[in-house]
């Protein structure tokens, strides 16, 4: 109760505010509504098809059945799609961050002509929706002969990820005091050394935030993958789930098991690194 004894009191007041109590009740009710879909899919995933059709939607699964997960894993080719997802995400995310950090450092700390123009181009890119031009992206990747390959999906992912990350990191680097880099310059260090030895280490908190955010975004991406990865052997998890949904949609238990297996990695990463999400989103507040 000691925790609660401080609650419901507005700033600078010692009395419980009935308004706040009402507000809190409303919040809890809404949170229950928000969490309902999750409960529903977990329940369904643990039921046999018979149980889905013959019991109420909110009946607890009386004899929880994990068989749905096993059969959905096989039927949905999860070993292939999860593997592809891991390869693409684990290459794209660190690589993208690294080249973004390099570019951001150059724009923030190296006196160059046109750096304003590049920065404007970059801000423009943060708002350029690729969903609007999937066909020309397909055409460009095809021109390089990279349809159905890992580089074929990683390159456009990089192209549309770089602007936001450069934008955020540029803001961060620009705020690093001049003295830090100038002392090293006078000692004869090149910009490459300063970037690697000074700026990369100091930006670790921002980099981690961007890393987590980008991991989830890349893991979840659907539209671009739909256009570039047409061979089922190259599919990622969202493509696999889409296919599962259209092929086995009346196999309710397995479908919901497939949803859970698709969603779980991102959900775990989020729950583990929550604070990085908020930091990554709010330092720049652009992008979804």
């Amino acid at each position: 109760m000691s925790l609660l004894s401080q609650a419901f009191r507005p700033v600078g007041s010692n009395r419980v505010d009935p308004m706040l109590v009402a507000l809190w009740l409303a919040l809890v009710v809404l949170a229950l509504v928000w969490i309902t879909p999750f409960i529903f899919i977990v329940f369904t995933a643990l039921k046999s098809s018979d149980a889905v059709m013959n019991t109420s939607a909110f009946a607890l699964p009386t004899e929880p059945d994990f068989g749905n997960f096993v059969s959905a894993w096989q039927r949905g080719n999860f070993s292939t799609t999860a593997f592809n997802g891991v390869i693409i995400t684990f290459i794209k995310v660190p690589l993208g961050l690294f080249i973004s950090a390099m570019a951001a450092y150059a724009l923030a700390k190296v006196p160059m002509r046109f750096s304003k123009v590049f920065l404007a181009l970059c801000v423009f890119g943060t708002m350029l929706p690729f969903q609007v031009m999937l066909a020309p992206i397909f055409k460009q990747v095809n021109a390089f002969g990279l349809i159905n390959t890992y580089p074929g999906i990683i390159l456009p992912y990089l192209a549309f990820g770089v602007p936001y990350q450069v934008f955020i990191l540029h803001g961060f680097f620009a705020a690093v005091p001049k003295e830090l880099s100038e002392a090293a310059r006078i000692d004869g260090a090149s910009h490459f050394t300063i970037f690697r030895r000074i700026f990369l280490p100091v930006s670790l908190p921002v980099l981690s935030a961007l890393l987590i955010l980008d991991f989830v975004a890349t893991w979840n991406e659907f539209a671009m993958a739909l256009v570039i990865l047409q061979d089922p052997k190259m599919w990622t998890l969202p493509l696999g789930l889409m296919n599962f949904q259209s092929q086995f949609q009346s196999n309710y238990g397995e479908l919901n098991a497939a949803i859970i297996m698709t969603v779980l990695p991102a959900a775990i990463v989020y729950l583990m690194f929550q604070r990085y999400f908020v930091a990554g989103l709010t330092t720049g507040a652009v992008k979804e």
Partner: protein
Amino acid sequence: MSKASLSMRPALQGYVLLAPALLVYLLFAVYPMIDVIRMSFASWNGLSAESRFVGIDNYRAVLTQDPVFWGALWNTLWWTALAVVIPNLISFGLALALNQNVPGRSSLRVVFYLPVIIASIAVATIWKWMYDPFFGLFNSLLTSWGLSDWIVDWLGDRKIALWSVFAAHVWQSVGFSMVLFLAGLQSVSLTLIEAARIDGAGRWAVFRHVTLPALTPTITIVFVLSLINSLKAFDIVYGMTGGGPAQSTQMLAMWAYTQSMQLGDFGRGAAISVILLLITLAVVVPYMRWMFRNPEDAR
């Protein structure tokens, strides 16, 4: 570093650092955007080596002969107008409430944000299952509450399908703007609020004259971001209805994709893309000008 890099002119070192990011961005983001304009004036099926210049034929076809285009445009604008207002109002309310001294704030925040990190295609699958006419959550609930008359085919009825998809979008997107608003609320000065209280300002007066003005930059950012996100709506519609029934939930971004990648008419698809890009630019360009004028607000 090697001697070569030491002797390299500083500006040159800068360009070397900039090059990889710039190159990939120009090749795979900027070039396709320019290419789509060129494609929109040509006829190409996606396979043949040659494409033929056809002037404004694609635009004429899209605007006058395409029976789906206007519906898709209308749906996109409808969706955008609603998506800018409804989820953001909920987010704003949630942020204000969660900024108060109530127990369990951080857990509540997690609950509302969780749908944001889930793949849109999974959100679509979850909701499609909840809308299942026979065993889905909504119709089961209605039945158990004795409201069987209210049962509808949520995604199969063209009058309500778009609303049904939109509800899923609200569930997914509320947490995103909520986090931005919460961050914005951190910048509201507590001393100012207390000073206003001491001066006798009520709840509403404090909100109206202290909180709201401090949140103006955040509101602008949320407004623009949700506008852009709505114009590119794709995954959730694709996953839930594929544009159906009878094209009643078709959207411009998806229709551009369908024309090019499924019907093999890259010219028409490109024309639709260009129209959608122009609409997007009408939002982005003024926003960028605002941002460069008030750089501290945008951060």
